[in-house]
């Protein structure tokens, strides 16, 4: 029963995790806009999302020592390893590849999609409550 409630929310829960990590990466790109030789990084969202969903299905994803069979499995806190370097549009003399226009765009886009996922979760919770209360 709890499993089903959990599974209903797990897609958007994972989406929020991946969006959160992507937000962090883009914030780091913006922070390092003036750091020589810094290379801008970003996640490939669809593959990161796939690996996050697979991580939940795959119990081996996060190996904790369990002293009882009844203990719950953990979820890895970061998606890990999915970050790739951005292609260079206009290189700069100091070897920095941060393009502020791209980063600001992606940052705003990612924030909106994060909030969209939150709205979806709220909707699902409302539906569940309606089903539970039967009103």
């Amino acid at each position: 029963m709890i499993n089903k409630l959990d599974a209903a929310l797990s897609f958007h829960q994972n989406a929020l995790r991946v969006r959160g990590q992507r937000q962090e990466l883009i914030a780091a790109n913006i922070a390092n806009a003036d750091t020589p030789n810094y290379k801008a990084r970003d996640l490939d969202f669809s593959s990161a999302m796939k690996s996050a969903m697979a991580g939940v299905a795959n119990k081996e994803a996060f190996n904790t020592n369990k002293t009882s069979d009844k203990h719950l499995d953990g979820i890895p806190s970061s998606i890990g390893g999915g970050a790739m370097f951005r292609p260079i549009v206009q290189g700069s003399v100091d070897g920095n590849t941060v393009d502020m226009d791209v980063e600001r765009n992606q940052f705003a886009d990612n924030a909106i999609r994060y909030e969209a996922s939150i709205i979806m979760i709220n909707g699902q919770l409302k539906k569940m409550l309606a089903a539970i209360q039967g009103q």
Partner: protein
Amino acid sequence: MSLFNVFNISGSAMSAQAQRLNTVASNLANADSATSANGTPYKSKQVVFSAMPSKSPDVSGVKVTKVVEDNSAPRMIYDPKHPLANDKGYVSMPNVNVTEEMVNMISASRAYQNNVETMNATKTMLMKTLTIGQG
């Protein structure tokens, strides 16, 4: 929780940019300081940024690794009445390039603003996350 790390990253970038702004202020203030504590004209100072690893993989903040002095030749100004003039009547003045410093100042201030906005957007996202299940 990865989103909280954005505060560390943007915060590190803000303090690095603030230090850059400080050196700009020092350079501009001393643009005409013909002598300093060690008797030589003031030398222009520049900060060196470098990426600093953070808690999450692939994500880095910014730190100022060192402040370097510009060792290029001082500006020579012909002013025979100046007490520091050499036997040919020239005074060595600081090698501060005022135009360059003004550009540096605008760049640092814009980068600082960018990081403030990043932080604010992330704060909004976190506040929205706290409202899950409330509406």
